[in-house]
């Protein structure tokens, strides 16, 4: 069996999502971090983190079902 593609996708988005979310949380309120008034790093980081975790959860589910 090949590498399940959801591994790299899940891991990469978990990593980048967590990175941006933490950075967004730490820099919250600093000038220049929200050019549109929305703390986008924090919010979009959380969205990507959720997407990455969902991908990883998909692998677990299939593995349990198969075996």
């Amino acid at each position, binding site marked *: 069996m090949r590498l399940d*593609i959801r591994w*790299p996708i899940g891991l*990469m988005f978990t*990593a980048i999502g967590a990175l941006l979310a933490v*950075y967004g949380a730490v820099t919250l309120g600093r000038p220049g971090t*929200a*050019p549109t008034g*929305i703390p986008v790093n924090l919010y*979009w980081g959380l969205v990507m983190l959720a*997407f990455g975790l969902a991908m990883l959860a998909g692998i677990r589910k299939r593995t349990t079902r198969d075996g």
Partner: protein
Amino acid sequence: MTHFTTLTWIDYTVMLVYFGFVISIGFILKRYVHTSTDFFLSGRSIPAWVTGLAFISANLGAQEVIGMGASGAKYGIATCHFYWVGAIPAMVFVGVLMMPFYYGSRARSVPEYLKLRFDEKTRGFNAISFATMTVFSSGISLYAMGKLLNLLVGWSFDTSILIAAGIVLVYTFLGGLGSAIYNEVLQFFLIVFGFAPLAFLGLRDVGGWSGLQERLASVATANGFAPGAYTESWSHMGHAASNPVGVEWFGLVMGLGFVLSFGYWCTDFLVVQRAMAANSMSAARRTPLIAAFPKMLMPFIVIVPGMLALVVGPQAQPPRDLGAAEARVETAALAADLAVSRQPSAVRAQEPVIERTRGVIPPKLDPATGEPMRDERGRLVLDYDLATPMMLVRFFPAGLLGLGLTALMASFMSGMAGNVTAFNTVWTYDIYQSYIRPGKDDKHYLGMGRIATVFGVAISLAAAYVAASFNNIMDLLQLVFAFVNAPLFATFALGMFWKRATGHGAFTGLLSGTLAAAVHHGLTLPAGAVAGSIKGGYFGVLQTFPSELAQTFWTAIVAWTTCFVVTIAVSLLTKPRPDEEMKGLVYALTPIQKDAGEPWHRRPAALGAVVLVAALVLNVIFW
């Protein structure tokens, strides 16, 4: 040259994480590559949703992201025709009707199908033109990316293109097509996540879709069109003069929707190769259909930011602290003002503010003098290619900006990897194995595939430098490729659906179609261009088109028709091939695929119908 923004450590970290993952995929997938089939066709082992996303991602190069943003700013919502008319119907056609012959014929490439169906010379013509085209187009996009990164963030041209090409080389060299496909799926998600916030934040800034319509209405009337010309895709297509595209509906539907679109999606090995890597006939047929769903939604991510770039205002609150992290907010508008202020003051005084720039799109600078360029009426020429990048700079703070630029590089890499993997396959199977060293063992061809990968990347790099020093040579090459491509779909359609078509017919048809394209282009001219230049009219001017696109579409229509007619005529005059040689290659001699027992979403015809209805609905909504 000054640049528009500066990156910080967080941007670089996002980029490095991405680089780390793409290279790791190459190393991990190397273990699965033992034969040339593993390397060139990924062992035909990949599920449909993965090949489907790779199918669209290989096409989603940087030129697509940048170019469609630019067109969004130039033509407005009508740019969606490149998707809803110029891609979706052809994607359904290739999946439902053509894939049985590509996948079922045991051909390993599109030129090889031509060899099985027609003859050696038809394959040779297609293989050589395709191989040349892929390396040069990846060189052109390499050049575009290097120039863009230099302008945006001040990286050196050499470093940018060497790093990007180096990473693509590593993962395609190690893991072959499988590695390219896996990375394309990763890149697809990255492009979506990197660009989606742009449309959202931009729309929010202008007051939603209705706000965008309102603001673009004033741009439309200022340019002499009806108020809805930039936000309605079909309403103004009655006459070429009434829409910013400069094309009427017939030229659009036939030229773009039929000839160019089917010629690309149904015959270009770059995309077809992804479907050929699928793990079953059914998966191969569903590949383009699965790809069609994200493809038809792509305009919201790549075209809308371009439209927004025309009308968004500059930064609301210019930051006072221009420290390291905040220095980025030197906005496009400010930079554009700077560019204009280098003009002699007399010129500046005559120009009303609205004439200086539009939204965040800066003026195009003359490469020789560094001064902003002006058209014959003295108005600034805008650099539309910067529409999307400027939106990134305008709306993304540090962090998200790193993600956006990484997405831009990912789009570039997926396009380049697509070109390189298609090149090494056609080179190894259709040129090297056929004409240079036939009859060697499989290991030999696997080795050749790896060498061809290095070679392909090296030529791309060389082409990027050629493009940097002689822009006209590249324009000329692209023109020649367009001539070669325009008639292709006639050859494939006749080959697959008319068993009487012969090799001599196909070859003469292709040649005369290509010639017809050159002659038509040489006898016509888009409005405002100089006769005898690369824009056309070098044999004299019989007709003037309202725009370059109209000329392109009509050139394609002429080429296709010529190829179609000549192929039929010559086929009827030459000896037909016996039926038994063409089993599995022609519609009439191939058993129909049975999929009646499957659920609808696994049946290509049903899935295709859903795709077409969805595309129709989108056309109606944005009519």
